[in-house]
């Protein structure tokens, strides 16, 4: 019944060398993305969301030290750089957080979109420009035919993000990685861009890996969600399930600290403390120092990501015991 995942990440570890020592930005991530679904990755700043995205494309400035990234059954970490370049933009595309800086200021937007078409699909200059105009129409940029000749500064932030999305979907990729695509935009524009991403998925059956720290975005858009903390996935499952009944204490804390779905006047409960500093090695569960439910053994033993039924996973010793008990 379930199809093969388009992206299957196992035990991925990416590390950065810094003055403070080795920073484990991605620390053993397992993640599946199925064709045509939108998977959200949520977590605080520094939880490794972006490092994960860049690692999938092998564009990270850090070092991928372990794990595998299976894309359409092929481990991307085994490919030669030239093969990787053929894949990027063609089968896996990415859109970035800030549309003010993610477009080359000195290149007409039509040409920027057309570049990828020219080297992936071998289109002529003229055909690429025509296709660029079509793509701009598809992302609802008004007056697309004329806009292809504009420079990025002639467009607004939302329009630029539409251009970036047009670039991303130009070769109808199997997977689109969106790294906080709405964070830099006005609230009114955010909804439009999210609708556009959802519409694109429906039209082309492109799977989307949506990186965000906005739980509202996840609730609105994502089929499944993975919650990241300190470089690890601490909980994943169908969005509705995770939001209705969070299993990991961090997810519970995260949901408790947002105003979504709560009564007026009910206070928000922020998670106390700070995440571990980059490079800091925490014995036991990385979340234990901030966890209200932490017990003695949480500080000694690091939990694994355990299947807890219904396609849901959690990385918590408390849940692990429950799972063991119900299994036995």
């Amino acid at each position, binding site marked *: 019944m379930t199809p093969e995942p388009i992206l299957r990440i196992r035990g991925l570890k990416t590390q950065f060398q810094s003055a403070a020592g080795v920073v484990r930005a991605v620390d053993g991530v397992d993640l599946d993305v199925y064709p045509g679904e939108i998977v959200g990755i949520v977590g605080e700043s520094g939880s490794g969301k972006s490092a994960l995205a*860049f690692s999938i*494309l092998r*564009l990270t400035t850090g070092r991928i030290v372990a794990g595998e990234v299976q894309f359409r059954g092929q481990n991307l970490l085994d490919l030669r750089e030239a093969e990787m*370049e*053929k*894949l*990027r*933009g*063609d089968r896996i*595309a*990415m859109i*970035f*957080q*800030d549309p*003010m*800086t*993610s*477009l*080359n*200021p*000195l*290149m007409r937007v039509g040409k920027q979109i057309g*570049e*990828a078409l020219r*080297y*992936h699909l071998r289109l002529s200059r003229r055909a690429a420009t025509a296709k660029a105009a079509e793509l701009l129409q598809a992302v609802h940029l008004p007056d697309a035919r004329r806009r292809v000749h504009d*420079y*990025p*500064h*002639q467009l607004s932030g939302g329009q630029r993000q539409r251009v*970036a999305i047009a*670039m991303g979907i130009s070769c109808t990729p199997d997977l689109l*990685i969106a790294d906080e695509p709405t964070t830099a935009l006005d609230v009114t524009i955010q909804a439009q861009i999210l609708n556009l991403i959802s519409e694109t998925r429906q039209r082309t059956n492109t799977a989307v890996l949506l990186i965000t720290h906005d739980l509202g975005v996840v609730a609105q858009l994502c089929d499944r969600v993975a919650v990241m903390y300190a470089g690890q996935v601490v909980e994943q499952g169908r969005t509705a399930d995770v939001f209705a009944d969070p299993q990991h204490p961090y997810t519970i804390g995260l949901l408790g600290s947002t105003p979504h779905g709560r009564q007026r006047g009910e206070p928000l409960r922020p998670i106390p403390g700070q995440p571990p500093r980059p490079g800091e090695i925490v014995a036991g569960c990385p979340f234990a120092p901030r966890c209200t439910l932490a017990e003695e053994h949480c500080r000694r033993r690091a939990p694994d990501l355990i299947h807890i039924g219904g396609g849901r996973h959690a990385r918590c010793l408390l849940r692990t015991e429950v799972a063991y008990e119900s299994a036995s």
Partner: protein
Amino acid sequence: MSEFSSPTAVTNQVTDTYAGRRAAAMPIARLARNRMAMLGLAVIVVVTLLALLAPVLPLADPNAINTTARLKPPGSPGAILGTDQLGRDILSRLIWGARVSLLVAVVAASIALSVGTLIGVLAGYFGGLVDNVFMRLIDVLLAFPYVLLAIALVSALGPGLINAMIAIAIVNISFYARNVRSAVLSVKSMEYIDAARAAGAGHLRIIALDILPNIIAPIVVLVSLNIGWMVTETAGLSFVGLGAQPPTSDWGSMLADGRRFILVAPHAIMMPGIAIVLLVFAFNSLGDGLRDALDPRLREGGR
């Protein structure tokens, strides 16, 4: 010469992220309002035209010796700026000499710019080992006083204009390499470079389409500041006899020739001296103007 010792003045000028056509049109308007820069530009245009038109201008033969009319003062009939110790027409020699000075400066600047930009782009873009190797080589080049290095190079290659040009080019590679490298470093950190990588562009394509266009502005400033310095350097090498060889007229060798007659015929040394000062001043004020126009953020700091 201080433009050589203060590379930071032209460092880190990267086209603003929000730049584009509007920002490309504004600098020209800003430059046009800068009187000093426009004056410099006018001088450069006039000198260049005179140099180009030298063969068709009604000038005396610059190398014709006339021993009966030696060291004539300016204003003499047939020699508006006077004659030198061999009776050669100074105006004619100045204009023919401008050809030499400009040609050497422009060609040397082009060589230094090409090699320096190549090194700077490779070092800045790839970083790591490539960066280290190139920059340490540049450090070695910079360890020598530049005039001394130029003299040493010409002595090794043999005197002559071509060799002087090569020496000047080599000495100036470090100037371009370092400044281009720092410009590349700040462009490289822009998200559109990541975006181009994520779209599948290779390194060459990114350098050609994303890096180079965005460092053109600082490069233009570098060149205009550098050419004035190269005019001085050419004259300097000719002055010590390592550049233009007789009878070729060159501003530096004219200075050297006139030096012995400074008391009886001061015009013989003043005319080429004024010409050098004027041209170098023109290039420097145009360079300053360009820098101000292309990067307003640097206007306050300045030199």
